[in-house]
């Protein structure tokens, strides 16, 4: 059993409520930070912990905090990114729904470190019922002296507000999120200036993911160095993985990043194996934007090493033979699934979510969707596959924000690893509407080329 730092108490009855959460040891990190540490010391602990942003990009959280500009007399803001809209990802929801106080606790400590007296949770509009849960937790924390003026006699004032979005994946991108929080369309900004210098209402701002901020609680309680001992290499601490698709036990799991992908899929402690006794065909391990891998490359790297559930191992081989940890949205496809169709739904998603500011993204996502639909229906030509490849290459790197890349990568990886499945659709236009290509050779052991 791996160590649980975030979800350990998730199943305690009524843990949603302050009294129970407090009785179970909650809010100790606020006491420790506000009574015994200065703000910079808190940032220092987070740096030592090696905590990497859990929203997808994996940027070191402590470093981000230390970049925050601190001009005299200008307010600074912490904004928690609870927009969670990357297909396959539903871990932040789980945390907020079942352990709202761990987020509030982490936010108070982080706000203290950053000097934010008003902090915000930007939550996706569809998580409507969770707004009530969070507001209740905030109210309870305030009633117990953990929010408001002069918290625990430290002289530090802090309030937390929940801001509900209204349906737009792009608002998960931090500058779009800031625009949206200012009451505008979610159009990403050109960087620089970075939010750390000029964020919401032109003030220095830190945007962090829900899980990142929640992880600050165990880091302060146990110390950054202790936290860094869990995990491996630059993958410190624990990571929440939301697992879905064709598995026996979909759900949210906390892992300590030392287990293998195979163990994660097949062990009863986690996904419990592929559903209905089917065989594994492919997996997108880090949310819809990261490259899909066929079963063989998923379980072993191109060098023949066991692939592990951590940042480094998942990206081993780069985009040629690896993938990414991303947001931890783990999507499993069994032998009956069609990669062309699945990729089509993702292309449709990105077309729907493109904000439309940059032509490569706006036009390219539409083209990719059309071509993939055509191919899926058996109406495509061989040249469509090359055209698709060409379009995704023209998007990547040519846009204001990374949504363009995020739309290009799944298409690129699908063609890279499943080209014969695409070709089969072209060659068998009628058959492909009746049945799927199946497992083919995607689980066959790979020949390892020894360097």
């Amino acid at each position, binding site marked *: 059993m791996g160590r649980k730092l975030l979800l350990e108490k998730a199943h305690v009855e009524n843990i949603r409520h302050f009294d129970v959460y407090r009785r179970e040891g909650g809010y100790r990190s606020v006491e420790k930070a506000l009574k015994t540490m200065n703000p910079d010391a808190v940032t220092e602990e987070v740096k030592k912990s090696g905590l990497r942003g859990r929203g997808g990009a994996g940027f070191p959280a402590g470093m981000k905090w230390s970049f925050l500009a601190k001009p005299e007399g200008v307010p600074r803001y912490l904004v928690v990114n609870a927009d969670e809209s990357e297909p396959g990802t*539903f871990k932040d929801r789980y945390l907020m729904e079942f352990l709202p106080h761990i987020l509030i606790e982490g936010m108070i400590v982080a706000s203290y470190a950053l000097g934010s007296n008003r902090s915000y949770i930007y939550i996706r509009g569809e998580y409507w*019922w969770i707004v009530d849960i969070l507001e209740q937790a905030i109210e309870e924390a305030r009633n117990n002296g953990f929010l408001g003026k002069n918290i625990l006699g430290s002289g530090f004032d802090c309030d937390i507000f929940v801001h509900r979005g209204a349906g737009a994946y792009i608002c998960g991108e931090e500058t779009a999120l800031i625009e949206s929080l200012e*009451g505008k*369309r979610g159009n990403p900004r050109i960087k620089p200036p970075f939010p750390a210098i000029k964020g919401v209402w032109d003030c220095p701002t830190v945007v962090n993911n829900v899980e990142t901020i929640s992880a600050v609680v165990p880091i302060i309680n146990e110390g950054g160095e202790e936290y860094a001992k869990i995990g491996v290499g630059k993958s410190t601490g624990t990571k929440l993985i939301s697992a*879905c698709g*064709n598995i026996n036990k979909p759900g949210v799991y906390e892992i300590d990043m030392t287990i293998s992908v195979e163990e994660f899929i097949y062990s009863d402690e986690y996904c419990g194996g592929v559903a209905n006794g089917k065989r594994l065909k492919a997996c997108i391990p880090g949310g819809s934007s990261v490259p899909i891998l066929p079963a063989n490359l998923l379980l072993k790297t191109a060098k023949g090493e066991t692939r592990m559930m951590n940042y480094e191992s998942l990206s081993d081989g780069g985009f040629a033979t690896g993938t990414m940890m991303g947001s931890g949205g783990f999507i499993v496809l069994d032998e009956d699934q069609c990669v062309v169709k699945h990729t089509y739904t993702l292309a*449709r998603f990105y077309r729907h979510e493109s904000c439309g500011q940059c032509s490569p993204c706006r036009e390219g996502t539409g083209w990719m969707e059309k071509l993939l639909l055509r191919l899926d229906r058996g109406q495509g030509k061989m040249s469509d596959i090359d055209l698709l490849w060409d379009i995704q290459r023209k998007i990547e790197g040519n846009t204001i924000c990374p949504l363009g890349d995020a739309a290009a990568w799944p298409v690129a990886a699908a063609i890279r690893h499943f080209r014969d499945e695409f070709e089969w659709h072209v060659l068998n236009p009628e058959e492909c509407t009746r049945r799927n290509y199946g497992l083919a050779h995607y689980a066959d052991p790979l020949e390892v080329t020894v360097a």
Partner: protein
Amino acid sequence: MIQFSDSKLKEVEKIIARYPQGKQKSAVIPVLHLAQQEFGGWLDVPVMDYVASLLSITPIEVYEVATFYSMFNLKPVGRYMFEVCQTGPCMISGADNIIDYIGKKLGIKPGETTSDGMFTLKTVECLGACGYAPMMQMGKHYKEHLTPQRVDEIVDECRRNAASNN
């Protein structure tokens, strides 16, 4: 005349107070949510103009926002909206069958509303419930692990609730 009740106006004031002085434009999304709920489930132009006047911003600033976000309805919708997720993870867990089933049962296609104004069927993209697929949003809550039987129950429940509220 479009006008929030006194209690809703208090709520609007509370929403504005979440943001720093002079930044009441930030309240536009939350206030639009409130307006959509209060004024029939969608945002007609006079409703958006009213929101603009409440926040002392121009109407165009409200239209820009209302047209960007998918949760704001710019046309009338049914009393109950079934927003079924169709993205990859839900698709491989049987979302297409559920969408077909609801469509046949209600006699409508995605994007349409039943003639009695009761139900709207809409397909949406990932709602963050991929592990509990197939699923849909209905108002404030999610309905997960959908099966045809579950859909039948939900439709019956809606009809019963509507009948007892009329």
